[in-house]
């Protein structure tokens, strides 16, 4: 694949608010025959330009698979994913993923990590370096530019990773449970911090989480997903004013109504997951028995 070309074409960003992504009737099936496992089934949604869409669903429901397809690391088995009308088939600068646990390069300092993207494209220019400085300052890591990731705390690593993505000015930012594994205090700080960052930059963002409070606090729109094979169970618009504060949300009636509704939907899906879990185990045993008999 011609990565150079890919990088250049993705350089063109149509709007300062980022791009629009449409997911239409996407399914993903791993394996084949008796061992085929359907992870995503006939799933459709859009990520609106400049909006923060949060996806929430039971763990193991196929959210990460959707992310890998959006990022272009994998292709859907059927259906289409388009970015501003163009089909998505490869990883590209227009869609950057911030991974669950830190994927900072351990052998590079914070600054070198942030400058990775620009250097990969031969853009180690004074302007870029100035922008890297600005981002370092914005994520509060001025004093840590020469430190290696292992020397940073969990929260700092997430911020460094946000900066590493943002320097590339992606048309869509994809965050896969970015605050998972942080302690409660750091997580809350990171949410506030991230919320401010989003309100400042306002780019199309796809944020995946399993935390309903986080979802309501950050989202313009929440996609509630069904259990595996996943599809959108419900779409809830969160029309709370920005800038938001965690305290406002906990005392806001609308927010509480959303939370009750989302929780009851999620609860239903979680209950299905138990039933389906035992069914899946039975299916697997059946399939295995069939294969043994054939041989």
């Amino acid at each position, binding site marked *: 694949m011609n*990565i150079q070309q890919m990088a250049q074409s993705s350089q063109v960003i149509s709007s300062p608010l980022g791009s629009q992504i449409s997911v239409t009737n996407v399914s993903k099936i791993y394996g084949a025959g008796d061992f085929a496992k359907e992870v995503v089934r006939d799933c459709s949604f859009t990520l609106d330009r400049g909006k923060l869409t949060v996806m929430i669903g039971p763990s193991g429901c196929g959210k990460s698979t959707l992310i890998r397809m959006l990022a272009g690391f994998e292709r859907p088995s059927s259906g289409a994913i388009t970015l501003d009308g163009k089909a998505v088939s490869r990883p590209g600068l227009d869609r950057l993923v911030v991974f669950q646990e830190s994927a900072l*390069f351990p052998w590079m300092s914070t600054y070198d990590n942030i400058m990775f993207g620009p250097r990969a494209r031969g853009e180690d220019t004074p302007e870029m370096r100035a922008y890297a400085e600005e981002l370092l300052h914005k994520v509060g890591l001025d004093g840590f530019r020469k*430190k290696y990731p292992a020397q940073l705390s969990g929260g700092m690593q997430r911020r460094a990773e946000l900066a590493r993505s943002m320097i590339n000015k992606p048309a869509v930012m994809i965050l896969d449970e970015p605050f998972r594994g942080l302690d409660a205090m750091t997580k809350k700080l990171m949410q506030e911090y991230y919320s401010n960052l989003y309100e400042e930059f306002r780019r199309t963002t796809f944020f995946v989480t399993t935390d309903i409070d986080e979802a309501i606090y950050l989202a313009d729109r929440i996609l509630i997903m069904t259990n595996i094979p996943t599809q959108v169970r419900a779409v809830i618009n969160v029309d709370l004013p920005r800038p938001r504060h965690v305290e406002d949300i906990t005392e806001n009636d609308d927010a509480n109504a959303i939370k009750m509704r989302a929780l009851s939907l999620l609860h239903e899906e979680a209950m299905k997951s138990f039933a389906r879990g035992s069914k899946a185990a039975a299916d697997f045993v059946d399939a295995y028995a069939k294969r043994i008999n054939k041989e």
Partner: protein
Amino acid sequence: MAKAFVLRAMSTVGGDDFWRGIASIAVFLIFWEVGSRSQALFGIAFPWISQIPAPSAVLQELVVLVQDPSFWMSALLSTLRVFEGFLAAMVVGIPLGLAMAVSRTFYGITFPVFEVLRPIPPLAWVPASIIFWPTQELSIAFVTFLGAFFTIVINVIGGAQAIDVRYFQAARSMGSSTWDIFCRIILPATLPSIVVGATVGVGITWAVVVAAEMISGGGSAGSVGGAAGGGLGFFIWNSYVGGSYTQIVAGMISIGIAGYLSSAVLRKIGKWLTPWLSQY
């Protein structure tokens, strides 16, 4: 090498680990001394250890040896062979390991042959190597090379295959070319394994070079430099033939020290190459 060792030792003088090290060596030497003089001290010869010359006698032998240029010649010769074999193993092994880890096709073609050759002990190559190579010197260097080569290649493959797939995904998303990914992801991510492979490999190299020298009779230099000119392995063998047991042990200790110094130097270089591993 000696200077680095002294600097290293001095930097830790006074630390707990330093004194523990001194105590450990002292206790070992005392047991050895008492054990080898057991006949004179207690009237009973302790099994095994009483056959070995006492450390005091070995020390006297070493004092004589370090003034003998032919001993240094032997040490230098072995060191050179280790260096040649080790360097060749690095130069051939690292690119080969990387290529095998990166290309599935190349891996499929080369790995089966590699896996069949790998379990063959380097010493089993000695006779064949003497036949294949025009000079004894080359055949010893070749066997030494084999000692380090397989360890280095296996470590490089293991290190490169264990790289987190998210690093590739992240780099690719940010616009890295394949060459950029190789230089800035695969190489640095594999470096710690290369260092481990090199450190383990150089130890094997010493083990192999000494045995190869014993078997091949010291190589071509043996006839040129006299009895003691054929490397430390030949030196020990020659001492055995000549019946000088203190010289045997002195030669063994020299190899121990040389091996330790080689590993220490490589560890130092490795630490310098992978600073992110020691910064916490």
